[in-house]
């Protein structure tokens, strides 16, 4: 045994080392010069602490962007809370509205045609939109078509409540941005369509009348604006003009963002109410049955509204500058007014003298 071991020791120097395939043997006569060290890992860079001072958060600690996201949430309550939060942020920091219109408008206006909102949410949303509408027309104008498109979509919605709410929103728009509304053909046509098919609507008549009145008003105002100086007398002796010349073009042309490329409605002026006889006739056709129906209900409170409405309609016809372009304008106008006149002949209306008088003026 011992001898065997000795033999093995003796032969150790001459023994051939068994090599494994693919393994590289370490050389014995070299120095291992590798250095091991630990890495220093930076998990975060030094952060600049910015924004925290300027950013505005709601009571629940949500930024406006977060809220806009939450407005599209599936859950009703989350949406409702987001509306409240947004309102709170915007009231506390009104300057944000103008800066964030690009995100605000799509997310807010989308809510108009949500079907599952209750009346409380509607009122919240309405006040929120009112808040948004405090923005001056100039900054609103690029986003206006989108806003209008959303609200008009609500106006044609099949749900009753949505339609009613959309009506209030459009009313709001008509009140706050008459000039912008005037340029939108979509708005005009949709409203006419809405009025002519509004038999089924159940909004209170007063709201509807108010709405129509303000709708007519914006075009009426436009007519009033038409005061370009046409004649100027220059007296050379005194060195004065008879009138002051307004070198500025009308307001709508000044709008730098109003390119027909961006909006679907191209230059609304051409088809607006008081310049084109065709549209005027359409309007009269749509309005007269409605007014007649309201008049027949014989509500004392509404007399005022009706008279004002009829007055506006009449003014529109009187000021129509392009009447001559259509040869049968008068006949068609008469036929359009026919329902009103018929209503006037009905007995129940006889008591209401004011309305009768207004209708009488219309027929002249």
């Amino acid at each position: 045994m011992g001898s065997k071991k000795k033999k093995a020791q003796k032969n150790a120097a001459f023994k051939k080392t068994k090599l494994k395939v693919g393994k590289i043997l370490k050389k014995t006569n070299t120095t291992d010069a590798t250095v091991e060290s630990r890495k220093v890992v930076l998990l975060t860079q030094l952060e600049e602490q910015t924004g925290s001072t300027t950013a505005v958060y709601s009571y629940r600690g949500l930024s406006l962007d977060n809220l806009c996201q939450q407005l599209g949430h599936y859950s009703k309550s989350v949406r409702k809370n987001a509306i409240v939060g947004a309102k709170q942020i915007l009231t506390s920091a009104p300057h944000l509205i103008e800066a964030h219109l690009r995100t605000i408008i799509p997310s807010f206006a989308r809510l108009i045609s949500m079907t599952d909102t209750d009346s409380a949410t509607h009122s919240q949303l309405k006040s929120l939109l009112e808040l948004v509408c405090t923005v001056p027309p100039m900054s609103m104008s690029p986003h206006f078509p989108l806003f209008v498109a959303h609200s008009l979509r609500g106006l044609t919605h099949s749900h009753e409540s949505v339609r009613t709410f959309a009506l209030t929103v459009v009313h709001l728009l008509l009140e706050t941005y008459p000039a912008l509304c005037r340029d939108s053909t979509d708005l005009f046509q949709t409203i006419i369509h809405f009025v002519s098919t509004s038999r089924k609507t159940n909004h209170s008549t007063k709201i509807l009348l108010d709405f129509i009145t303000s709708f007519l008003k914006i075009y009426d105002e436009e007519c009033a604006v038409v005061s370009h100086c046409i004649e100027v007398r220059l007296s050379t002796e005194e060195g004065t003009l008879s009138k002051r010349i307004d070198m500025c073009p009308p307001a709508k042309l000044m709008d730098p963002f109003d390119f027909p490329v961006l909006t679907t409605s191209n230059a609304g002026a051409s088809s607006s109410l008081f310049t084109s006889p065709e549209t005027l006739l359409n309007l009269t056709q749509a309005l007269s049955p409605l007014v007649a129906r309201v008049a027949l209900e014989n509500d004392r409170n509404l007399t005022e509204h009706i008279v004002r409405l009829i007055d506006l309609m009449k003014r529109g016809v009187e000021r129509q500058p392009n009447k001559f372009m259509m040869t049968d304008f008068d006949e068609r106008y008469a036929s359009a007014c026919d329902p009103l006149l018929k209503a006037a002949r009905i007995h129940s209306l006889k008591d209401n003298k004011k309305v009768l008088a207004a209708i009488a003026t219309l027929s002249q």
Partner: protein
Amino acid sequence: LRVTTSRHLFKMSVVPIPQASGKINKFAMTERHLGFLQEMVRKNPESYKEEFLEQYEHFMQTIKLLHLQPVQHRMDVQPLLDSITFLSGVVVFFKEEAKAFGDQMLTVLREQATGLDPHVRMAFCKALIPLRNKNFIEPLTLLELFFELIKLEDKHLRKFILSSISSHLKVICVQKKNLKLAGKIQNFCFAKLKDSRSIVVRCAQLILIDAFRKKYFRDTKTANAISEGCFHKVPKIQVAAIKFFIGSKSDEDGEEELSDDDENGGEEDGKTLKEVMNAFRYAKKTKKRERDLEKAKKTLSKKKKAKKESRGKECNLLAVQSLYDAQEFGDRLFKMLESTKVEKFEVRLFRLALLARIIGIHRLQTLQFYSLAVFPCSYVQRYLQPKQRDVTRILLYAAQACHELVPPDTIENLVRCIAYNFVTDRNSPEAITVGINAIREIFNNCPFAATEELLRDLSQYKTYKNKNVSMAARAIITLFRQVNPKLLHKRDRGRLTAEQMEGEDREYLDFGVPAVREFVPGAECLPEEREENGEMEVDEEEEEKSDEEGWVDVHHAEDVSDKEGEEGEDEEEEDEDEEGEWETDDEEDVEGEEDDDDEEGEEEDDDEEEEEEEEEEDEEDNEEEEMKGPIQSMKLKKRLRKSEMKAKIATVPKEKAVKVSEGRILTQEEFKKINQFQIKKALVSQKKIAREIVGTRKRTLDDDRLDEEYEEKRQRRIEGDGLPRLKDIEHFHKKMRRATKEERMESIMEGREGREDYGKRKKNGPHVGKTNRENAKKKVFNMVKNKIRGKNRQRSFRDQQTSLKNYLLKQAGRKPGNAKL
């Protein structure tokens, strides 16, 4: 009318009462259920127009919104989809709205397609289809729009567009036969083939290919337009075009598709899917019937698939044949092959396949294609190695590209290359087999490329110990026995048949010298002069007469060439019984012939002996062969003399055939008759050869197989495109090796497919796995009431006593239970 009036009344009642809460009126109903409303509008479009218009207006507003803001919130998508489906189903009833509806969608898709939600986009496209079918939209404008939309990266949309265009084409071409519109669409697709966007090109190509396969546009124009795709810069388009011309892979492999017998068999029990479903619906439902139904469905779908496949097969030959300038096309393809551009091997292989196929079918002269195989630097030569991937395919393409008009020396080089690389003893038997098979296919196409020396080398492999190799070598021998026996070694030549004597079945006498026929072979079966009668009426008579005359001659020929034993006659008689018509004449003839037979009988015996000797010699070594050389040559001379005699007598029917075919114009019926005659003649001569060999040496199954295969191949050459298939190259007579376990398992699993598991069936009813007690708990109390009552009555006397006792104690105001009496 009644509906409208009732509706009118209904409206009257509803309008004054706006939204009475809690009461669901019809409006409220329809607000929520567009599907319901759709149904109502369909029934009576006029009276429900108002509701429709409401939805329509809302949709129009939405479209306006989409113009401004194509990206919609995810919650708004579903309502929009609903309204689109509603409107598309209903809008066709209102003409003006339909038009505007279509136009609006078209404009939105044109302008905002990229931004739209994919589902909405798809819904728009789907809604446009019925409008087009009802002619509210121009088909071409829609097609243009679709080709615009194809540029979007939307897989589902692309798929839908392709399928919708295909189905539209079907309607146009098959149902309406509106060829004008179809032509317009075709031209439009041609224009799109030259588009700069590759996806557009690809779609146009797919449409055209599909239309070609389905026979909507099966013309040369389409085929040539598709052929341009082979040179497109995008490989995918190239491959699609090339694949179209190559046809299905199974065709190239030579796998058999469902034969006619199968189809006929299917038709016997075969009902359509509808019938099967109906039968199931009205029969009692059992497990077995259900299973049968599933099976029937499966087979039907399989059949359908096979049909589709075969359609591809049938059209690709037509497409290749209808190329305008095949030579130029081939040259361009070859140039692409030569180019050193790096591309996938598969693509290169496809291109090679197409080029070979075109060369073979059009008989092109692209000589570099073969010579490339010889120069060591060329890549084809690199390809011709046993270890090359897909080498059998490459060999196949080499064989396909060989045809009669290629100079023999070119082919010879190619063959030599294959022989050096494959057919050597140091290669595996598989490689040798494949090599020999490939050489056989090449020689089959151009027999004049064969040299005696090479052929003898190859034929020596017939004694190789591997059966695959030996059979392959014997197949080559069989081939050359028919084609050019002189090149074979004497003992391999076998006996010459009558046709070979006459040189009848040879298409080419020498390279580039086609065998010109002076007469219609087999015309001798017709009478020399046609009877001048009303043709159709006296057909039978005529036939009989012609038979008589014809058959005298034929049998004369046969007598000399045939040596019929008694058994043979019996067989023939049986055959003839089946055919009826020929019967009488033949019997007479046979009787007449017997004398001749007897005379030749002695000779026959001698011959047989000789043959036996020969065969024995064959099996002996070559050394001895030399010794017996002179004896053999003697015999050969004898045989030659005999064959000369035969030839002399055989010329008689030939003369008659010449006379017949020169004398008049043959009718269709006469051609039919000739065909029948030829087939019969071939059968007889085959039998005769078989009999001869039976007499000499034991004819093995292998011999039969080789002959059958040869016949089959010849038939195939005449029928289709005449190109060899992969099956021919990869032909192994014996299985190469045992199947691996995976393969075995695979085949087992395949067999198990669709079979129910053995053992107890799994039950899955509502009460499965519950005890009756558990079930009883769920029963209605009234059902189990009586049972529970009965249980109470079955109390033992003691129980009754104790309960009575407790009761009495309770009555007495004392505590029940523990009290002891």
